[in-house]
């Protein structure tokens, strides 16, 4: 299947206009020795019917199941309006909105997204998105270090391990030292002084990787007392429907993952990094910013702004190299948040109550919670012989949470379970009953 069209007569006329006899002549600039004589080693082209069959077969080899896994990627209900609106081709086939006059749709929606993120995080400025939560964190750290000049950061060990790994990669590339601030019983207590000493920032996640809600105020104060920025990571932003905005609890930068707003889990991508900060960081922020302005007739309009921060203008002195970001995912988030609106509080409470019911159900069957801390919609329980139990649960059609023992030896047989509105009360009870059955 080719998406080109042109009859032979067209080709002949075009070649004549150019002044060559064959298309081959147009490639004369490439040394003959390097030009391929035969075809590429690719499978035969497929028709649409054949491709659809093949892809349905591949999709069928995945089993999304009833999902009780969270850990940075969250299965939430996507209201029908989100797909219906985001699949309008004027949105998804559009280019980056550099020509503002023909991109007001994209620009307005991104402006709304920025507004939603600021309101939920309690921050002054949010950008148009980063690739994902982990790279949003990495770039937040680079922003902090760029402002402070201090090439050390302190990272809570309750941070998502994948985020830690990505941060290690970016810090290695930039000679930034990472010190670990050790938590206890699933949360960060006061970070040790030697972790914070001379650090540009303290990085904490709330709710953290173990699902526990951190005391962001106390930790931010500790950071500030040591002259460090407080960077707060949020991987499940539905928590902001219920929990205090980090910006009101002393955070200087809030970053993380907004995938759960209107985007499917999609095997981890595309994701939706968010980055928000105090007004003082505005000109140091990576990524695009959409601002309000007027047009030549004085009519309100939106445009990309403060572009002198960006790579296409500042090049090696840009605040980041980021160009393409996660535009359509941010649009989906804006539509989702428009539909959800202030209902986010009710939905957050629902998530929390569902998690509580699941936790209680499991507990009553002998599967004790690992941590005694406030949580939002994720919690860990101890299931003896967890790996084998999880295998049986998979056969029963579950994605049965995440085995913490895969990440931390000391949490062998501890399973991190996430509950959202996608798994209702009956699903909870069924799951707990299945766990009990298989853990015998």
């Amino acid at each position, binding site marked *: 299947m080719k998406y080109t069209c042109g009859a032979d007569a067209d080709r002949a006329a075009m070649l004549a206009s150019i002044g060559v006899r064959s298309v081959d002549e*147009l490639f004369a600039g490439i*040394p003959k020795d*390097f030009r391929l004589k035969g075809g590429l080693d690719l499978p035969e082209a497929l028709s649409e019917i054949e491709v659809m069959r093949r892809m*349905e077969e591949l999709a069928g080899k995945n089993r999304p199941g009833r999902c009780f896994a969270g850990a940075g990627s969250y299965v939430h209900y996507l209201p029908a309006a989100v797909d219906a609106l985001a699949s309008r081709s004027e949105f998804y086939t*559009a280019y980056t909105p550099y020509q503002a006059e023909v991109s007001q749709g994209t620009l307005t929606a991104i402006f709304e997204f920025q507004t939603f993120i600021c309101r939920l995080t309690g921050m002054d400025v949010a950008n148009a998105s980063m690739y994902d939560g982990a790279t949003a964190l990495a770039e937040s750290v680079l922003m902090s270090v760029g402002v402070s000049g201090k090439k050390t950061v302190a990272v809570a060990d309750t941070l*998502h391990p994948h985020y830690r790994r990505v941060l290690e990669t970016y810090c290695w590339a930039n000679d930034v030292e990472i010190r670990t601030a050790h938590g206890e019983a699933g949360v960060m207590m006061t970070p040790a002084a030697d972790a914070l000493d001379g650090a540009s920032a303290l990085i904490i996640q709330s709710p953290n990787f173990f699902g526990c809600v951190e005391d962001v105020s106390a930790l931010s104060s500790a950071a500030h007392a040591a002259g460090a920025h407080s960077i707060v990571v949020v991987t499940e932003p539905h928590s902001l429907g219920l929990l205090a905005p980090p910006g009101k609890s002393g955070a200087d930068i809030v970053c993380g993952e907004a995938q759960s707003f209107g985007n499917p889990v999609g095997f981890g991508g595309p*994701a939706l990094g968010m980055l928000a900060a105090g007004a003082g960081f505005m000109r140091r922020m990576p990524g695009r910013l959409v601002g309000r302005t007027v047009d030549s007739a004085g009519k309100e309009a939106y445009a990309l702004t403060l572009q002198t921060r960006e790579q296409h203008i500042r090049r090696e002195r840009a605040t980041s190299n980021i160009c393409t970001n996660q535009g359509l995912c941010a649009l989906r988030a804006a539509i989702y948040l*428009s539909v959800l609106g202030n209902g986010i509080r009710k939905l957050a409470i629902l998530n929390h109550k569902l998690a509580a019911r699941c936790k209680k159900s499991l507990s009553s069957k002998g599967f004790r919670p690992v941590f005694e801390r406030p949580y939002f919609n994720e919690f860990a329980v101890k299931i003896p012989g967890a790996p084998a139990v999880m295998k049986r649960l998979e056969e029963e059609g579950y994605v049965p949470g995440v085995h913490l023992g895969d990440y931390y030896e000391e949490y062998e047989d501890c399973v991190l379970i996430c509950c959202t509105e996608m798994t209702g009360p009956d699903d909870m009870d069924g799951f707990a009953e299945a766990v009990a059955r298989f853990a015998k």
Partner: protein
Amino acid sequence: MPVIFEKSGCGRSAYPMPEWKLDDADPIPPELLNDGVDLVEAGELDIVRHYTALSRMNFGVDTGMYPLGSCTMKYNPKINERVAALPGFTGLHPLASRGLSQGALEVLHGLSGLLCAITGMRRFSLAPAAGAHGELAGVMVIKKYFEKRGERRGVILIPDSAHGTNPASVAMCGFETREVPSTSEGDVDMEKLRSIVDQNVAAMMLTSPNTLGLFDRNTPAIANLLHDKGALFYCDGANLNALLGVVRVRDLGFDLMHINLHKTFSTPHGGGGPGSGPLGVCDELEPYLPVPVVLKGKDGFHLEYDRPDSIGRIHSFYGNFLVALRAFVYISMLGSEGIRDAGETAVLNANYLLSLLRKDYNLPVDRACMHEFVLNDKNMPGGVTTNDIAKRILDFGYHAPTVYFPLLIPGAIMIEPTETETRETLEAFAEAMIAIKREAETSPETVKTAPHTTPVGRVDAVLAARKPVLKWEP
């Protein structure tokens, strides 16, 4: 156009909340809770009308042609969208065990294989979420490679025509950029290059074909020069569309490259993403790829983390999977013949369009182009600038070409029609550009105050930057 917050007033959320009866949960200390939220309360119909109206103010590939050089705004096939919506893909959690995700892993493994067949590289990582992310990962691979060899090389060379992401990516890895000038013919100046390649140069990054739309005739010589000094050769694959099925990037001597799936491989631009920037490497650099790598064993596919020389993770999971999926479908549909046809037709279309425009527009470098070409506003009458032309073309129902890039051509107008435009569309676009030239001659004010028929007139970018308003407030 009002924002959604101004449509608030319904008094309730539009979300279809289930009313399950649940017990109260374990209490959360009140100091950890918020006092309520203040987002919006709009009805579903108002929301639907709002975003529908917004979409109608947008231009898209489905609306009309984007002659944007270096962006390859080709048609986004609808079959890709249908596949990317299959619940077996969208609903799969990234931490589902390997037994539950064989289909997804097969797609990632398969796409790497297809991209290797097209480019000659050994393996691709699909983790980079955009071209710039792929470049960054590539520079990290270069850094790791020399670290392993115990060599301290601090410089990466880029041509003066390089895209801004190149030096920005280099800087984000602690290297210093040094610019290599181009000749008036548009090739890298070999004499100048020879004088600056030394033991401190880790690599050179080159877009191929280059950002003038020209194949640098010195490419193999550059490769030899760099390799002789122990340096690496990176290909910025943004312009890969011109080489599809014609030449393999690895064969030209490049050691590593990134590809933009949202350019060459038809995945939609989304108004600024999500894209995907796979990083491909030769044999020698394969151990340095980001983790995890998708491998195929006798019992299926799995994610491999035991890669001691890897640069590490660069993404929270495995990259933009649903974007990679679309590219996989696209290549499956095209096959070898279709891939070659895309490359050839892209170059044919660009040369044809150039032949229609060259009498009326200045061509700074007069050579047969590849998939794109660069004109500029030199000798444009009436004081009409490249920016004016870009704004006026919007009135004719086309998106503007890429403007003011590459930097080495003042007032650059970079045009890339892609292979999916027909001869008729190309001719109509050329007519529009020529009409604008006539207007510049007879009534330049029309051009200088354009656009006139778009949803908003020319926006005030200066005001937007001088008084930044980055969120809505009542």
